[in-house]
């Protein structure tokens, strides 16, 4: 310690002590502080965080230590709020700040202006910490993932109105599904307050209720550019969304917290547009194909039924009754034939008997007697044969039939005696 000038601040009653080089506690402390601040000023120290305290004031108190020593440190509220990750006991950190003395306690400490985890970048650590926290809360659970609608009426998009993402999405939709209905809620996607804007936009889409699915994202950029999508506010808003959310942040290699919470992660905004709506041409072809198969299948079914019907009709079981009928018909035909034959025979035999009888009749005919010279006399009007003379009166006309011709004569005399001719 340098000898101290005794003039400044000296008081008469301490005169003798001063001359002996005696200092007040405050004086010494002030001199130590000045000396320390001059000597060290800005320092960067690596050590382990321990004895971490966060009182209501918002300042953060901790002890940095290694195996051989320890030093008190404080992060003022204003610096603490800029910390992207959570400080934890046991964490190895590199802090930058100024060394100073806390006079009321006579202890020296580091006022930390920035702090970063050893080994990892601060953003990386923040990412891992938030991921771990939300995972433990169950925000990434697979059963929470809502299915995407097959054919959304309206696609909501949360991104910058002037960024690459909306352009890529519109380009893909124009190709895949030209009549798509897209509603954009423009937001800032990077910088201070971007995360809150994105979160609010998601909430507002839910409040509005007009969109069936949301695409939340932005084009590629540095990890700092994409940072909004790693913030808790966005993760919570996606988690709270009733509308299914597709995250679409940066390029394939960029994974954000939003991707873990989203119902579906698209590698890029372009892919999100491919996921969100089907290819209209393919859809129409599929519908047409189904229509064709429907008709073909029905035709097949009808053909099958027809074939079955034909087979049944041709089958013995179905044919049997007809066969029976046919057999009866045939029998009937046979009987009819036999009947006809029998009738014909009867007619013939009758005809024969008739001829025989006719022959005999012929032989008995009185006309044959007339041939032999006999004659028959009869009354011409009554054709009554006259067998006795008594049958006629003199003067009466009689007719006599001869073998050839007839004679009409008048009776002269009628002798009542029977006579031999």
């Amino acid at each position: 310690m340098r000898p101290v000038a005794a003039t400044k601040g000296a008081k008469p009653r301490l005169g003798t002590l001063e001359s002996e080089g005696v200092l007040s506690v405050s004086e010494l402390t002030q001199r130590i502080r000045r000396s320390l601040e001059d000597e060290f000023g800005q320092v960067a120290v690596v050590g382990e965080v321990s004895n971490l305290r966060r009182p209501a004031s918002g300042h953060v108190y901790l002890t940095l230590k290694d195996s051989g020593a320890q030093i008190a440190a404080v992060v003022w509220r204003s610096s603490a709020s800029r910390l992207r990750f959570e400080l934890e006991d046991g964490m190895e950190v590199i802090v930058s700040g100024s060394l100073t003395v806390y006079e009321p306690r006579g202890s020296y400490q580091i006022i930390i202006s920035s702090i970063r985890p050893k080994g990892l970048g601060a953003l990386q650590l923040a990412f891992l910490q938030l991921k771990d926290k939300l995972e433990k809360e169950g925000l990434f659970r697979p059963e929470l993932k809502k299915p995407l609608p097959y054919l959304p009426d309206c696609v909501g998009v949360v991104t910058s109105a002037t960024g690459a993402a909306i352009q890529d999405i519109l380009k893909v939709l124009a190709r895949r599904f030209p009549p798509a209905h897209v509603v954009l809620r423009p937001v800032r996607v990077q910088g201070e307050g971007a995360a809150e804007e994105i979160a609010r936009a998601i909430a507002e889409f839910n409040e509005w209720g007009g969109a069936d699915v949301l695409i939340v994202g932005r084009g590629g950029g540095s990890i700092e550019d994409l940072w909004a999508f790693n913030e808790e506010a966005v993760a919570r808003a996606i988690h709270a969304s009733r509308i299914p959310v597709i995250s679409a942040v940066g390029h394939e290699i960029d994974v954000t917290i939003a991707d873990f919470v989203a119902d579906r992660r698209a590698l890029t905004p372009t892919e999100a547009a491919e996921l969100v709506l089907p290819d209209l041409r393919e859809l129409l072809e599929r519908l047409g194909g189904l229509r064709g198969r429907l008709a073909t299948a029905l035709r097949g079914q009808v053909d099958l039924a027809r074939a079955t019907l034909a087979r049944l009709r041709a089958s013995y079981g179905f044919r049997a009754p007809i066969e029976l009928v046919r057999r009866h018909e045939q029998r009937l035909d046979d009987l009819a034939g036999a009947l006809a034959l029998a009738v014909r025979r009867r007619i013939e035999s009758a005809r024969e008997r008739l001829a025989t009888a006719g022959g005999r009749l012929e032989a008995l005919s009185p006309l044959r007697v007339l041939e032999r010279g006999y004659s028959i006399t009869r009354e011409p009007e009554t054709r009554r044969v006259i067998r006795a003379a008594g049958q006629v009166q003199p003067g009466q006309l009689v007719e006599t039939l001869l073998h050839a011709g007839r004679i009409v004569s008048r009776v002269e005399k009628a002798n009542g005696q029977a006579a031999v001719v």
Partner: protein
Amino acid sequence: MGKRLSFEKNLEALEKIVEELESGTLTLDEALERYERGVAAHKECSDILAAAEKRLEVLTKGPDGKFETQPLKPGAGSAREDEA
């Protein structure tokens, strides 16, 4: 929402009906009934697709808290570099 559900439902129904019909295990009556339903489902799907209409809009929230959609101006987002 209804429209979307109806599309999905009808497309699924149509696919199921086609498969049933193709399986050939239906009676003719059933097949005819399925065919009719299939044709109706197909028509529903086709009508929905035909009714889709290209619209690009921006969602805004007015000071009264009411939401409005306005047509998205063509050329919006052409400055690809500017993400902010």
